[in-house]
């Protein structure tokens, strides 16, 4: 109240003027955010980079505590889980036999073909620092950044499947847009039929599979891998399995475990696409000759190939890995 009595009659118009100026500034800020989005997003990641790593000493114990509580809750369902695991183990034994035979066969065939698995796919491992903090955005913050050579657009996986892509790199941190975020679009191949599609996140747990040629050829349980179309995402990484929901929509159940994102691999695959201008017209790929260093063909050529050749070796490598 000591404050309020200071609001004398000449102070109130000043205060009102100040508020108006403040609101105008904020409105300008929103407009700048809309007009020069890449720059403001860089500012955002710089601010995050400044604040979040400094909080690590508090966040680590609280996060660990939260995860312990989660784990403890899962103890209460121990009996069901145990029964379920036994059942799955039974199935897995048969699968293991099949996998061993296939692995031998695959090794023989690879040897015959002298195929070299993609040597450019090395990875950098990062630790998840923070969440997006909003119910409408699905992203996580990693503790690796431009210092470690991370570039925008690189794929990110947990041990098993694709988690998302790098979008926004700061000095010490980088942000991963998850598959499930409504801004996520990833070119994929549905495996047995080899059809190309786009995986569109929509903030639900299972992203949509869209732009298929013949959706009737797809069955639930088909494997989905990245196709590498357009050259913005590396090809041949396992993404998940097709599920069909009640409306007949094709959706994807990710192989990655989104409930426990802890260590993530950032696949060091290709130079990535720099986001320097707001974007231009969509036209034919230009220049039309492929870069000599890159291993994937231009999109025009890729459309002519049918997938079994380029995509087949990699999933087996994945299965052998995990």
């Amino acid at each position, binding site marked *: 109240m000591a*404050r*309020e009595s200071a609001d004398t009659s000449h102070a109130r118009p000043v205060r009102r003027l100040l508020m108006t100026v403040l609101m105008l500034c904020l409105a300008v800020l*929103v407009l700048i*955010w809309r007009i020069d989005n890449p720059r403001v997003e860089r500012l955002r990641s710089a601010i995050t980079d400044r604040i979040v790593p400094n*909080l690590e000493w508090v966040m680590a114990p609280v996060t660990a505590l939260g995860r312990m509580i989660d784990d403890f809750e899962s103890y209460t369902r121990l009996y069901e889980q145990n029964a379920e695991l036994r059942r799955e183990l039974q199935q897995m034994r048969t699968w293991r036999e099949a996998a061993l035979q296939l692995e031998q066969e695959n090794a023989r065939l690879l040897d015959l073909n002298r195929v070299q698995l993609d040597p450019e796919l090395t990875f950098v491992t990062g630790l998840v620092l923070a969440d997006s903090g*909003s*119910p409408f955005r699905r992203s996580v913050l990693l503790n690796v950044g431009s210092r470690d050579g991370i570039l925008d657009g690189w794929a990110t996986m947990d041990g098993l499947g694709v988690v998302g892509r790098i979008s926004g790199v700061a000095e010490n941190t980088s942000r991963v847009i998850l598959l499930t975020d409504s801004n996520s679009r990833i070119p994929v191949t549905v495996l047995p039929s080899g059809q190309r599609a786009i995986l569109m996140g929509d903030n639900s747990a299972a992203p949509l599979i869209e732009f298929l040629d013949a959706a009737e050829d797809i069955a639930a349980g088909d494997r989905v891998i990245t196709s590498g179309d357009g050259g913005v995402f590396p090809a041949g990484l396992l993404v998940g399995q097709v599920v069909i929901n009640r409306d007949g929509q094709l959706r994807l159940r990710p192989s990655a475990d989104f409930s426990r*994102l802890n260590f993530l691999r950032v696949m060091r695959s290709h130079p990535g696409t720099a986001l320097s201008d707001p974007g231009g017209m969509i036209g034919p790929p230009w220049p039309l000759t492929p870069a000599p260093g890159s291993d994937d063909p231009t999109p025009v050529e890729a459309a002519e190939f049918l997938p079994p050749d380029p995509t087949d070796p990699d999933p087996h490598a994945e299965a052998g890995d995990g």
Partner: protein
Amino acid sequence: MARRTTPRRIWAYRGIYLGIGLAVIFFRILPLDARTPGLPGPDIILSVTFAWVLRQPAAAPVTAILFLFLLGDFLLQRPVGLWTLLTLMAVTSLQNRRATLAEAPFLLEMAVVSGAILAMILAERVILWVLLTDQPSLGLVLMEGLATIVIYPIVVFVSKFLLGMDMLPFVDREAG
């Protein structure tokens, strides 16, 4: 009355305000579970801001509101500045209505605050639509707004009985 007008008390409130705000942002960015949550939680900072601005405007000064909401905009991946702008507008209009709200029953205050929150959600959608930006689904946003409205009486209860914050009579301000 004189008990809670001391500057020390006001400064304590300001400290608590900043502390609550920072704690809420901190807990929201904890990487506990990256799956989609069923229901979005309430915007606790917003309801605390409204409740305190109506009770003791000095406890939630504009600079603190600006700081907390801008930090939230940057860290929580919201459109930068938009939610802050809408909050400041709502706070200003609530402060202008303190004359009627100070003596009015709590239900009326509740209705006004609900109206303000819904108006903010609507305005945000309209502005994002005009700016041709991607929008989160209306259902989720409304759910968050409703959760914020539902939590408002709890916030008022806590600030009244645990923090001893009563509605500041409007007369003082008018006299000044």
